[in-house]
């Protein structure tokens, strides 16, 4: 008997009602004990106060985790789409609080939620594979109809006789030693084996992804959920019976203009002054970079017909002549007098609306380029055409004096 007491890990007291347990807990609390716990078949409200349990620090940990989630989500969204790989979606800002908010909210809740669970387990020192209380037979009724109070022998105030007296005087129906039964607390080896197999198994999908990432295939992608690939939406230009005009895309309401699309500046958008006369001079700043931009746009859109120097002998023209295409309308020589004397605004208007062009039949000398070239680029082309004209009609006087000898 003495042998057993020396090895006891603590004392276990049994009570029949939660009220009795609560009263006993208050006594133990007032006795100054720190290392003890109660075990009940169901949550007993007020037991925290009776045991003198201090508020947990878990809320602060959760708050920190939630704030980490908020920052992680914002940084992730801001950096990936706003900085690292700017990708314009539906004309929305690259980073905005509005679409960022749901993800931020979700990640905040996720971090906080997982931390609540893991933090609770960690603060309770769980999971624990074995508890010495399981070696006390009557303790099995803690999940049925009995209430227990366990006092740990490692408590600094613990002294067997006084602790036993306290518990026996607290209305306990039984007070028993918790025996120190040697147990193997190591995790069984088969658990390790299963865990190792599972860890390795997680690499399989990653390996498969890596393998397909670095290979090519002629078979179509494997669609697990197809609703992003096959959407029930109409394409631009598709006919639908729903709207009156049969178009899938909705135009602006009659009498409305989208914000920022009013184009009320006649000079810039139409090349005219207030009286409806062509502007003599382009309403844009003349600089080397604008001229370079004009050269680039000219070479893309104008050169095929009008030629690199603007002489009207572009490659398309040459090809048309070679094929002897009847009805080919010869492109204008942009350096000829009748165009040199045109005001800037008129050339701009030709680029915008075409030349002798019939929109109904889609025929004419030159088609409009308003859809392909933005207004500021059209002006840049006008300036570049002026440069071509000057080059074509230049005399030796135009060359700086110190460079003339080079010619």
């Amino acid at each position, binding site marked *: 008997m003495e042998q057993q007491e020396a090895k006891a890990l603590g004392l276990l007291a049994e009570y029949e009602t*939660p009220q009795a347990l609560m009263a006993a807990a208050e006594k133990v609390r007032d006795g100054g004990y720190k290392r003890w716990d109660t075990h009940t078949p169901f949550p007993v409200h*007020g037991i925290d106060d*009776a045991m003198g349990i201090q508020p947990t620090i878990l809320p602060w940990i959760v708050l920190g985790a939630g704030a980490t989630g908020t920052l992680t989500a914002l940084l992730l969204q801001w950096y990936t789409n706003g900085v690292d790989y700017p990708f314009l979606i539906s004309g929305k800002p690259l980073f905005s609080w509005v679409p960022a*908010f749901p993800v931020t909210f979700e990640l905040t809740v996720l971090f906080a939620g997982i931390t609540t669970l893991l933090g609770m387990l960690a603060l309770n020192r769980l999971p624990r594979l074995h508890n010495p209380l399981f070696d006390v037979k009557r303790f099995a009724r803690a999940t049925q109809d009995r209430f227990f109070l366990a006092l740990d022998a490692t408590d600094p105030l613990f002294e067997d006789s006084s602790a036993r007296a306290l518990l026996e005087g607290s209305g306990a129906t039984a007070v028993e030693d918790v025996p120190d039964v040697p147990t193997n607390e190591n995790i069984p080896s088969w658990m390790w084996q299963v865990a190792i197999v599972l860890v390795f198994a997680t690499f399989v999908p990653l390996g498969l992804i890596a393998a397909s990432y670095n290979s090519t295939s002629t078979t179509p992608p494997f669609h697990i959920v197809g609703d992003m690939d096959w959407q029930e939406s109409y394409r631009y230009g598709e006919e639908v019976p729903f709207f009156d005009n049969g178009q899938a895309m909705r135009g602006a*309401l009659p009498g409305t203009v989208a914000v920022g699309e009013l184009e009320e500046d006649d000079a810039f958008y139409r090349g005219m002054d207030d009286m409806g006369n062509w502007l003599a001079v382009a309403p844009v700043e003349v600089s080397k970079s604008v001229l370079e931009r004009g050269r680039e746009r000219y070479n893309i859109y104008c050169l095929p017909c009008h030629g690199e120097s603007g002489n009207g002998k572009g490659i398309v023209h040459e090809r048309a002549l070679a094929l002897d295409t009847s009805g080919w309308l010869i492109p204008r020589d942009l350096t000829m007098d009748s165009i040199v004397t045109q005001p800037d605004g008129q050339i701009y208007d030709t680029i915008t609306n075409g030349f002798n062009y019939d929109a109904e039949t889609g025929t004419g000398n030159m088609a409009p380029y308003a859809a392909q070239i933005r207004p500021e680029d059209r002006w840049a082309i006008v300036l570049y055409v002026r440069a071509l004209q000057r080059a074509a009609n230049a005399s030796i006087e135009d060359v700086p004096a110190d460079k003339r000898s080079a010619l």
Partner: protein
Amino acid sequence: MSHSPSISLEGLNPEKFTLGARAGSLVGRFLVVGIVGLAVAAALGLTGDQGDLSRFLHAYTTVYVYFTSIALGALFFVLINHVTSAGWSVTTRRIAELVTGAFPLLALLSLPLIIAALMGTAEIYPWANPDGGLVPEGVAHLVHKKAGFLNAKFFAARMVLYFVIWIAMAAWFKSRSLAQDLSGDPAITNLFKKRSAPMIPVFALTLTFFALDLLMSLDPVWYSTIFGVYYFAGGFLCFMALLGILAKKFGAEDGILSGFIRDEHYHDIGKLTFAFVMFWGYIAFSQYILIWYANIPEETAWYHEREGLFWGHVGVLFLLKFLVPFVGLISRHMKRHPQRLVIFGGWVMVMHFYDMFFLGMPSHLNTLHYLEAQAGPATEAGKAWHHAAESFASMPFGIMELACLIGIGGLFVAAVAKSFASHSILAVRDPRLPESMTFHNP
């Protein structure tokens, strides 16, 4: 258990919990204040400068929906506590029942709006007079298509229906609950539970259509399918804030419910306030992000009017009505501390008013702009409308809004005070009263 109540619940007398003259003395004073406020507002609106009629009707609507939302929140509090067999709330439930006593007054106060609709006052309800020119030209046909629902007579009939239903519901709960004070019959509690469930969908539908009729129809073209929920979320939030304030008033040391309203009640009221701060933010944000993302002109126009003017940005509303109380009330200690709960409750009540203002008043500016366009911007009349719009935009909360707030607010307080003065504010023989006295939050 060990925390048995120090107050004996046997033979509680309802008389002891009746405020009597303490609330009754408020009735007369606030009645006078309210009538004077409304008289000033009406006089300004009917005899004032150009645009003052529109401003009066808009300010009146804004304040009116604010106070109605509080009464609706109270009614919902009663319904939801019965349907869930809630025990914790019993000591506070009578407060909600008494607040719903304001419904007859609110029904009376709906008359000016019904009359405005019946007279075809397009300044507030463009649909009441679809050819009045206060609808943008390109969408006028849409307003005509909605005429089957949005017409003055049906509007008036709906308003009558809403109030018949709400007054009947509120009166039934209140009278039965007061009868239980004398009889202590548990069958009444069971009947509450049984009847409240089918009443909730009726409540939800009437509230939704009320919000659509009074607020959303200010712009007869714009629509949001979440609008009713938005109004509900804000209204219930505002009532929970008010309940926190009243609970502190009655539950304090020298209060009539001292000992009956405990920290646990503040905690639960705080939790519901916090939850509905979240819910309002969630609903308001859901409405905003869909419109923001789709960017369809007829939807974004509504936010454009509200963001581009004196409101700054809708983000300001989120910050003040969602983020501030969210951060403030997130901690358990804040919810269990009555004084702090009252501070955030007051904040939420003010922000809910700002929210109603955000919904209602920009429509007044729209009306002025339409009237300006209708008269022709260059004409004398057009310039006068333009001037009215500019002066409103520079100071949107003026004498008119203040007079309406004092007017309707005064009458609302008078009606609620009258309700409090003559009835016990504790359901003394509710079978769940002991539970409410002893429960613990985990």
